[in-house]
Structures are given as structure tokens and as C-alpha cells.
């Protein structure tokens, strides 16, 4: 199963794209301040529509918060 932000997520199917996953999560993909890592590698924004998630992928979806 694919893990999103530390939690296994059955809704995100292997073979789906990063973009599809973000839509499923309700993340505004046009908004600045969002970044995605898969298996500890950055997935650049232009690759979101084509980057395919493998089974057991560990995905981090990050956004801007106050801090520092």
C-alpha cells in the first residue's frame, strides 16, 4: 500500500499519478507553497501529471506553515 504523510492510504492506488493523488487529497495544485517527495526524492511540479506512484511508495506532501 502507498503511504501518504506517514499513513497507509488505500484510496491512492499504485499506478496513479502524483497529480491524481493530490486531487484526491483535495490539495490545490495551482497554489504556491506545495511540494511533494516520493521515497525521499523531490518530484518537481512539472512532473506531477506524469509521475506514477509504485506500490509501497512513501509519499510526503508538504505545504507552507508558520515557523522560524
Amino acid at each position, binding site marked *: 500500500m502507498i503511504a501518504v*504523510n*506517514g499513513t497507509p492510504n488505500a484510496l491512492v492506488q499504485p499506478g496513479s499519478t502524483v497529480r491524481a493523488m493530490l486531487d484526491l*487529497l*483535495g*490539495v490545490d495544485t495551482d*497554489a*504556491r*507553497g*506545495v*511540494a*511533494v*517527495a516520493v521515497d*525521499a526524492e*523531490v518530484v*518537481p*511540479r512539472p512532473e506531477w501529471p506524469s509521475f506514477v506512484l509504485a506500490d509501497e511508495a512513501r509519499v*510526503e*506532501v*508538504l*505545504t*507552507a*506553515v*508558520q*515557523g*522560524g
Partner: protein
Amino acid sequence: MEPMTQTATDPLVIGSRSYRSRLLLGTGGFGRLEALTEAIGASGTQLVTVALRRVDAAQRGSLVDVLDAAGVELLPNTAGCFTARDAVLTAKLAREAFSTDLIKLEVIGDERTLLPDAVELVAAAEELVAAGFTVLPYTTDDPVLARRLEDSGCAAIMPLGSPIGSGMGILNPYNIGLIVEQATVPVVLDAGVGTTSDAALAMELGCDAVLCASAISRAQDPVAMALAIRAGVEGGRLAYGAGRIPRRRYAEASTPDAGLPDFGS
């Protein structure tokens, strides 16, 4: 008058960027985004920190939109990272998220004091400089470590006055002075400021700027404290340029002895 004017108006230059304000604001600790906006206005800052965390569906309001509307530039941080590997990955994600090469590099070595891990910090700085980042490392007040960071290509050095959020001010002004003396890149006093006098002291010691978060965001009146610390930064900068008198052990009369009347005994 010219030196004073020059010191008061010369810009803070970090890499290829130039700022009128010498106060950097941390955005942590503000309860409402409206309070953050008001403090940004009062502080006069042009550069504010942001962090990256996992998306939260319940999150209300866009921080980036608010900061864009305030007209400030973003300085993403790597807060919460304990290894060079995590800090480098976080910096790369921040570059993606915010379209900036600026990074406030934090690699923490101790949970209780949040003091930096010098070894991991230098390793991360070298890797990020090589990857084209403009690196601003949060570091201890160790002048040797500061030199190592500068040698590795960092665009500024950001030594702590005292631990993050402690409000203890500048515990080792001597070391901060040494760092300023040797640095050829800007020195930004980062962490430890509790109130105006701490910020003023940093600037009097020759720091080029002050980064302040908790002292403003957690003050009872953040807007008033933003104004106060801004005044401290500006006053301290002026005093640094003005050239203070040397300290002396005994008094030196400011009124001449010549012409002193004799009233008898």
C-alpha cells in the same frame, strides 16, 4: 553627518539581494494570520521565514497568499531537521514549493536546547551551496565554525545570541564581536532576542541584521514589540556607525576645570 546617513540608509546585501530593512521576521508563534500581517507592517521587514510541514486538510487560509499580499520575500527554513540528509531534502522541497534559492539552514543537534549540530550543519551547507542555493546557516556563536561556514560558500552567517525562543539575549557578545570582525558576508543575529535592547546590542556589535520571531510573536502586544525592536535595530545600527566612546575605568569630566571659581574654605 555623512557617515551617519550612510550607516542609516545603506542596504543589507545578501548574495545578489538587497534590503532596506535590517530586521528579518520569523513567522512562528502568531496566533492569527491577521496578527502576523500587522506585525510585518510594524516591523518594516522585507524578509520572513516560513517552514514546510505535512498538508493538513483542516488548515484555514493560505499563509503564502497572506505573505505575498504583505509584499515580503520568503526565507524557507529547514526547522526540525536533525541530519544533513533531511535538511538538504527539505531545502530542495522548499525550493520547489516557494521558487526561491534562499534557505535558512537549520540542523539541530539537541532537542532541549535546539542548538545546531556543527558537523551536520557544515556538511549540509557544502551540499546546498554546490546545488546552487543561497545558504543562510543558523549556527552557534563559535567564530571558527562561522569561518568554516563562510569558507563553504554561505551567503550570510546567522549565529544565535542564545537558544531559540529563550529570550536570554546575547550570552556571549565577545564571540559575536569576533564573528563580525572576521566575516566578509553579512552576520545576522538569529535567536535569543527577548526585547529591544538585545536587538540594539547585536547591531552595536556590528551585526548586519537581526532575525526575530518569538520576541515579537509571543509578546503581549506583538505590534508594539515589532515597532520597538525595529527601533532598536535602527538605533543600534546608527550607534555602530557613529563610533561609541571607549569604556574607561574612571570618570572623565565633561565640564572643563579651567575657570572654576574659588569660594574660599
